[in-house]
């Protein structure tokens, strides 16, 4: 290669790689004609939606395709020697210990019945024949290197005794022990909380410069890839549609798919009032249905013309390193999106604005005061076997007071285990409340759902997280939507079917879906049916429990737009739970930040995302991966884990991890350890639960500078 003189050595060179899986119906091509190179000390990000062949490439490189997978074409060269077309034994000697892989779920990568130290040391004793003692020492050094607190102690522990973030650190340490030339990471942070994810990404960045390994980073998250990658390969339906330096691609995406992906995710700080999400229509085609001699993205592309369907476009070089597989790549910026789409989207935004103006009447729909939801557990004493032991309580929701006005949306954010879902269960009556007052439509509803009157049940419905389990697989879509209609008698008996069809149309599905079974639908379609089912009783309040977090980004945008549209049309209030802060910000009018069962900050969305912040909110915002490699973000990392809700810290629940109290409070913040913090009123409706005075909190810089 021409530029190789000035650049680092090429470690991995993938050329025209095609991979197919054998099935009963013949070979199915999962990856087609993919080429890229990875250099020393460089991270190449592979992004794309699920089913686009990202992981298949990784498995192809390490020859782990399974019994029915095979490389049908192309070359993989690792440090100059070809990996394709060799036997497993030959591969083993070529690769040796030079390629390491990190997977999504650390729980599955670590052996639960072997101490971590033995697992780490084994890597060295097995590959390098290093004596046990030395291997042990080296493992401890490596654990120190990955910022593991108290590494000697960790070596003696089992997998379940350390947290998820620490587990992933151990897996990374294990991968780095042999000083690999190539490190492949397959969604290494997807299973982690946002604060933990940020710390692991920091570590990956650090290691890159220290070890000078070549990295392949696979993810679906544009924000994550913007943070860690140097080069970017965008995958779609088994083909590479765009590749280039990460800054170039984010600045000037040239393939309609890349552009679509970027328009589909809200940027942190975007709100439904001032920006729109543009979903990509349709879905990723199944490998068997992919067009062979046409642009693979044409069916979903807004710019597609007949030319696109005539031949498969080749990679068009836009600059030395930036290339895209689109015949219009060079002029794509000047080809505006179809007008119709823009206008319609703008209409939605306008309608929303008008609606906000109308909504000055501040009618309360739901109000809770000191709501408590405790789960009893037995202590581990012998007495408790006989039911005599001391009763302990997991304080899932502790003293939560909130108010939701009619037609508004309340977003609830927080790490996993902070009580978001428990709060919702308490509100809707799936779990008995342990204390506090809850009023819905001016009626006190302290009791469980089975004891509530049908009238109240009907007014509060829910949209669930997991598209695969939100619908009963045994019944057709029509029957499932008809059930709440029949139960709450929203329409006369004879009109149930018309009503179902009307609801299907409201969620942008045609009447033909009436007789479909859930397994015939895609994830996004299932989620829409779930929304239609929640709408069927015409509720005043819809609770959305992470409705988009299990969906691909392009589909996510469509579902969010749909929910907004429904809110416009039906004027329903919503409670929106999500762990993605950009999505919550985008969707909500008000936001409550929860930590360990308590609300630590609550107020209008725009107020939450600018100072004064609660220190926890600040840390959350600093951890959000931003899909812009040039954005500046403060680096605040929380240490430790969320403490157990069984025994929450005294005083302020957050004091064990608070990065602010030592510097901003007299006496190193001793007060936080003993005294419950007071509510501090900042602006109208914006409250912060913190010992630090408001004036000081206001002085904090905003987390993100653009």
């Amino acid at each position: 290669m021409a530029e190789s003189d000035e650049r680092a050595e090429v470690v991995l060179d993938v050329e025209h790689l095609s991979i197919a899986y054998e099935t009963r119906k013949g070979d199915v091509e999962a990856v087609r004609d993919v080429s890229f190179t990875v250099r020393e000390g460089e991270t190449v990000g592979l992004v794309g939606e699920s089913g686009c062949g990202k992981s298949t490439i990784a498995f192809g490189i390490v020859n782990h395709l399974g019994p029915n997978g095979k490389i049908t074409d192309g070359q993989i060269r690792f440090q100059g020697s070809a990996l394709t077309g060799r036997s497993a034994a030959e591969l083993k000697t070529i690769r040796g210990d030079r390629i390491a892989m990190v997977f999504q779920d650390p729980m599955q990568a670590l052996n639960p019945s072997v101490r971590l130290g033995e697992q780490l040391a084994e890597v060295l004793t097995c590959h390098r024949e290093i004596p046990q003692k030395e291997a042990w020492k080296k493992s401890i050094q490596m654990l120190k290197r990955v910022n593991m607190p108290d590494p000697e102690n960790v070596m003696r522990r089992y997998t379940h005794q350390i947290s998820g973030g620490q587990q992933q650190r151990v897996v990374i340490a294990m991968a780095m022990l042999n000083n690999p030339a190539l490190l492949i990471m397959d969604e290494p942070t997807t299973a982690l909380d946002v604060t933990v994810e940020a710390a692991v990404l920091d570590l990956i960045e650090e290691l890159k410069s220290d070890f000078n390994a070549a990295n392949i980073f696979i993810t679906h998250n544009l924000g994550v890839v913007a943070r860690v990658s140097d080069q970017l390969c965008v995958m779609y339906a088994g083909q590479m549609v765009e590749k280039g330096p990460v800054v170039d691609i984010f600045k000037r995406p040239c393939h309609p798919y890349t552009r679509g992906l970027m328009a589909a995710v809200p940027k942190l700080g975007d709100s439904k009032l001032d920006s729109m999400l543009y979903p990509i229509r349709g879905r990723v085609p199944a490998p068997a249905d992919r067009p062979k001699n046409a642009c693979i993205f044409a069916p979903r592309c807004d710019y597609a013309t007949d030319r696109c369907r005539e031949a498969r476009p080749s990679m068009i070089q836009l600059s030395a390193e930036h290339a895209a597989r689109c015949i219009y790549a060079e002029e794509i910026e000047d080809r505006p999106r179809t007008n119709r789409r823009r206008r319609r989207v703008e209409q939605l935004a306008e309608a929303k604005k008008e609606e906000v103006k109308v909504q000055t009447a501040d009618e309360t729909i739901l109000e809770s005061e000191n709501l408590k939801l405790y789960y009893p557990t037995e202590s581990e004493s012998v007495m408790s076997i006989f039911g005599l032991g001391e009763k302990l309580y997991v304080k899932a929701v502790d003293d939560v007071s909130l108010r939701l006005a009619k037609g508004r949306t309340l977003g609830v954010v927080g790490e996993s285990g902070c009580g978001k879902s428990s709060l919702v269960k308490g509100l809707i009556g799936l779990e008995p409340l342990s204390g506090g007052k809850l009023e819905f439509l001016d009626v006190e509803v302290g009791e469980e759902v089975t004891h509530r009157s049908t009238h109240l049940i009907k007014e509060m419905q829910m949209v669930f997280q997991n598209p695969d389990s939100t619908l009963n697989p045994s019944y057709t879509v029509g029957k499932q939507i008809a059930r709440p209609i029949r139960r709450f008698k929203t329409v006369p008996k004879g009109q149930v079917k018309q009503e179902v069809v009307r609801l299907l149309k409201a969620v942008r599905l045609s009447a033909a879906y009436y007789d479909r079974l859930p397994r015939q639908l895609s994830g996004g379609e299932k989620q829409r049916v779930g929304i239609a089912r929640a709408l069927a009783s015409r509720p005043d309040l819809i609770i959305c429990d992470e409705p988009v977090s299990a969906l691909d980004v392009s589909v996510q945008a469509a579902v969010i737009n749909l929910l907004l549209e429904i809110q416009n049309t039906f004027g329903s209030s919503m409670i929106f739970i999500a762990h993605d802060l950009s999505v919550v910000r985008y969707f909500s009018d008000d936001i409550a930040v929860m930590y360990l069962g308590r609300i630590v900050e609550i107020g209008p969305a725009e107020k939450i995302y600018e100072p004064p912040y609660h220190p926890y909110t600040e840390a959350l915002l600093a951890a959000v991966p931003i899909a812009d490699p040039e954005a500046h973000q403060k680096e605040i990392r929380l240490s430790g884990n969320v403490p157990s809700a069984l025994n929450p810290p005294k005083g302020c629940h957050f004091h064990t991890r608070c990065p602010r109290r030592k510097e901003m409070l007299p006496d190193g913040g001793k007060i936080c350890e003993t005294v419950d913090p007071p509510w501090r009123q900042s602006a109208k409706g914006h409250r912060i639960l913190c010992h630090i005075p408001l004036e000081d909190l206001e002085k904090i810089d905003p987390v993100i500078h653009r």
Partner: protein
Amino acid sequence: MTDGESAVSTSGDAVDPIPDLRQRSFFQRWWEGFSIIFASKTAMVGLFLVLFWIFVAIFAPFLTPYTPLEQDWKSPNIGPSAEHPLGTDELGRDLWSRLIYGARVVLVVLPISEDLWIPGGTAIWGVIVALVVGTALGLISGYYGGWIDEITMRLLDAMMAVPIILLYLIIMAALGASAINVVIAMTIVGTPGIARLVRSLTLDIRTREYIRAAETRGENPWHIMFIEILPNARGPIIVDAMLRVGYAIFAMGTLGFLGLGIPPPSPDWGSMVAKGREFILAGSPWAALWPSVAIATLVVGLNLLADGLREESMRYQ
């Protein structure tokens, strides 16, 4: 709200094009489900064996000129011949006709009294009743949990602790020998296992979000258990039931052999073996052989069918 009426709509999520999935009639769908049997050789062999026995049981009167009770004093204990294809027993009764009439009791008719019978064989009814009781108990204890679960399951565990054959003997000795009592015994013996299976399935299914959706609609527990949960547990239950029919036939044979099954002179495979056994050493093994072969082929057939079905349905997941 249709596309035309609504002022706001985003074309990006406009009505998706419908993949080519034409609506099929109920029969076609049923046939599609059924056709997975043809994909498995194991299941096909099993199906063939089972269908053979069902066929001969239904058409028994047309397949033999003799009734099962007709005695031919001149030729007792003879081997297969032109007149008697499988031979005769010690009283000169035709073994073929006794065999296929015996299959009737197992698979096709349940004699309630001398001249009253209902369709569905003894083994089938035994499994069906056990299935109904076991499924109900399993659903209830799995869905409600807590002390209801604790009490039900401990009681069923206690029943499972008694060896099965002993349990059969106790029940049959207490109730007396009759087809109905065989069904009752099978129910008592079969219920705990089915309840355990259904309970474990329920425990899994009740955590799904569609159950939560039903709960937020305030559905009553019976609706949730029988309408929302049960249909999703049917796959494993059907496979288990098929295996259980096999065990039930086996149990009927055992009871008949011990003289506790359907009372003589009804043609019962178990009692035929028991009677025929006495003449094996006398040089005529036929009376014992044929019913043994019958039990074996039917049980093996059902097991193969269930296994093949399970394997094939797993492969599709």
